[in-house]
């Protein structure tokens, strides 16, 4: 039980001693079958350190989302390794991997994927439910605080259908943060939002990174997001073609 060894509640690993939260080593991934099969990732090496805000950019079909799913433990590479907080994901069984995702990683997707039958607050608390929590007064207070931080303090009990697209996505961001993840992964989080709501989500990410040193990896093909991050990793045809650090990221979109 690798995860139990690595991830017992009392023994969650800190990031590797050198501050590495995420490491990908020579990742390769083929998608499709038969004649339609193609190699989407062709040997990706990537290291993300604690507190970094990384933008993963590239044209459609360059392999950004596929890479994100591999890094988040939602998919397995055909070759190569992914380490999250020092844990080699290939050694972790399926259900333990689910627990690892729960405890170490927060996800924000292009689509919010909120559970329609549950209130905004319940949706935020959902990752806590997965580990048997979410019912204590402290947990609920934390969920409420997160919703307040994303500007939805007055919409705790609203169902997803009663919220706008931007509000739904902000609930999804709060949900991704509720377990205080080491790593926040986002797949085009403003892709479905208008510019005002996109701006709000961006500012939220920026603030999380600045104020709480939240490690963030965002997949985007929006150059404005890229310009605002610490580091921009560009993918083309399944390979990293550029990995640039920005000394002075832009502060607004």
């Amino acid at each position: 039980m690798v995860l139990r060894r690595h991830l017992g509640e009392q023994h969650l690993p800190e990031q590797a001693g050198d501050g590495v939260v995420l490491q990908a080593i020579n990742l390769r991934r083929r998608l499709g079958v038969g004649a339609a099969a193609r190699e989407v990732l062709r040997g990706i090496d990537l290291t993300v350190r604690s507190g970094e805000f990384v933008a993963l950019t590239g044209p459609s079909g360059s392999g950004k989302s596929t890479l994100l799913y591999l890094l988040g433990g939602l998919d397995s590479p055909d070759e190569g390794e992914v380490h999250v907080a020092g844990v080699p994901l290939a050694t972790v069984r399926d259900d333990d991997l689910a627990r690892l995702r729960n405890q170490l990683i927060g996800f924000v997707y292009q689509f919010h994927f909120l559970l329609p039958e549950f209130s905004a607050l319940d949706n935020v608390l959902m990752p806590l439910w997965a580990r048997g929590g979410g019912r204590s007064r402290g947990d609920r207070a934390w969920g409420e605080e997160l919703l307040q931080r994303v500007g939805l303090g007055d919409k705790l009990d609203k169902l997803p259908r009663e919220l706008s697209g931007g509000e739904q996505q902000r609930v999804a961001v709060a949900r991704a943060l509720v377990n205080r993840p080491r790593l926040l992964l986002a797949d085009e989080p403003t892709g479905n939002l208008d510019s005002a709501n996109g701006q709000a989500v961006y500012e939220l990410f920026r603030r999380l990174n600045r104020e709480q040193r939240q490690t963030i990896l965002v997949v985007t093909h929006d150059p404005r997001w890229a310009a605002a991050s610490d580091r921009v990793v560009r993918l083309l045809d399944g390979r990293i073609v550029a990995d640039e650090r920005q000394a002075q990221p832009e502060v607004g979109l």
Partner: protein
Amino acid sequence: MTAVARLAWRHLVAAPRPVALTVAGVAVGVAVFIFTVAMMDGLVIFFSQRILRISPTLTVLPERQETSAARLSLQRSAEPDVLVLSRPPVPDQRPTLRGAPGLANQLAALPGVTGVSLAAAAAGVISFGTVPEGAVVLGLDPAAERQVTELWRLVVKGSWDALSARRDGVILGVNLAERLGAQVGDRVLVAGEGGATKELEVVGILAAGVGALDEGTAIVNLPVAQGLAGWGGDEASELRLRTAEFLGLEKLRRRAGELAGYRVDTWQESNRAALQLFRTIGLTTYLLTGFVLVVAGLGIGNRLATMILDKEREIAILRAYGFSRWAVRGVFVLEGLLMGVAGALAGCLVAALVIAYLQAFPIRFAAREGAALAYTELYLANDPRYYLLIAAVAVVIALLAAALAVRRAVRVLPVEVLRGIA
């Protein structure tokens, strides 16, 4: 409430109409099954009660225990469709119980025995005018028989007690009397196997609703039957016993057998064919009705399969956020369980109400005149065990259906769903 329970509950309340339909399907299946069992058991109880009115609970037969044991042993080793019979009596060995009155006294002293009656049954011919009819001439002691069966209640014309009063009286089965054209007060001529004849007066007509009694039996006083058969006064063809209990007679049967040295049958054995028929009908009915429950279970499986298909995105996101396969499986199995339990409870309630109503206001059928065994009303048994057992079966079927349906849910790969939508 745990996360699994909360998710399951919200899924159900979010789709009240299809869930209600599914639950109603289970409820109907459970109610129909309970009602059918109540009806079939009621039928068996109804007929058992009536059989017990006209049959002794234990019957001592003129077959020595040794013979009986040997016959049973042969029967056990024989092919199922081979019937092993005792050796026919040689001419000087009549098939009768010798010393029957003394034996009757001994048996009457057994604890649990409430009445003993001697019977002498032999073939005979009854003639009225120019009409002769073959019949079983059944000799009984009318007073003793009253302690054993309720045949005396089934005399529809004349009276049972007239047989006690008139030594040369005869009570005819209703159909036999009809064929002969004889009425109460008419005199008939009865001839025994050995050629002995006796003129008897019809003192009653018996309508039991049982072919053997109504069609071809003439009840006479015991000495008359013995005389017609050429038997001695201490001989009988059977000893008829009434016991305080109707069930669990094995011990008493064994004691009576040991005491008498003859074969002793319980009333269930004497009426094995009829009871076996009921059991077979019951089993067939249960199997057919059981399909209703299985269909209801399929309804649950179908509902869950649809729900799982609708919720693939949610399942993917739950898995992505750390819900294990077991937790996801648990959500949908719990939904199946809740629907099964709700359906079972509703079905039990409906069945209880319908049964209570039909017990209070029974459906009655027209019966043949005087037929004691006729099924004259929809007789429903009611036992809490029906409800417990059938509800448990329904819940198990619901769980099985859910377990089959959720296989798809746990096969959902979050990345495939999320990639498909992204």
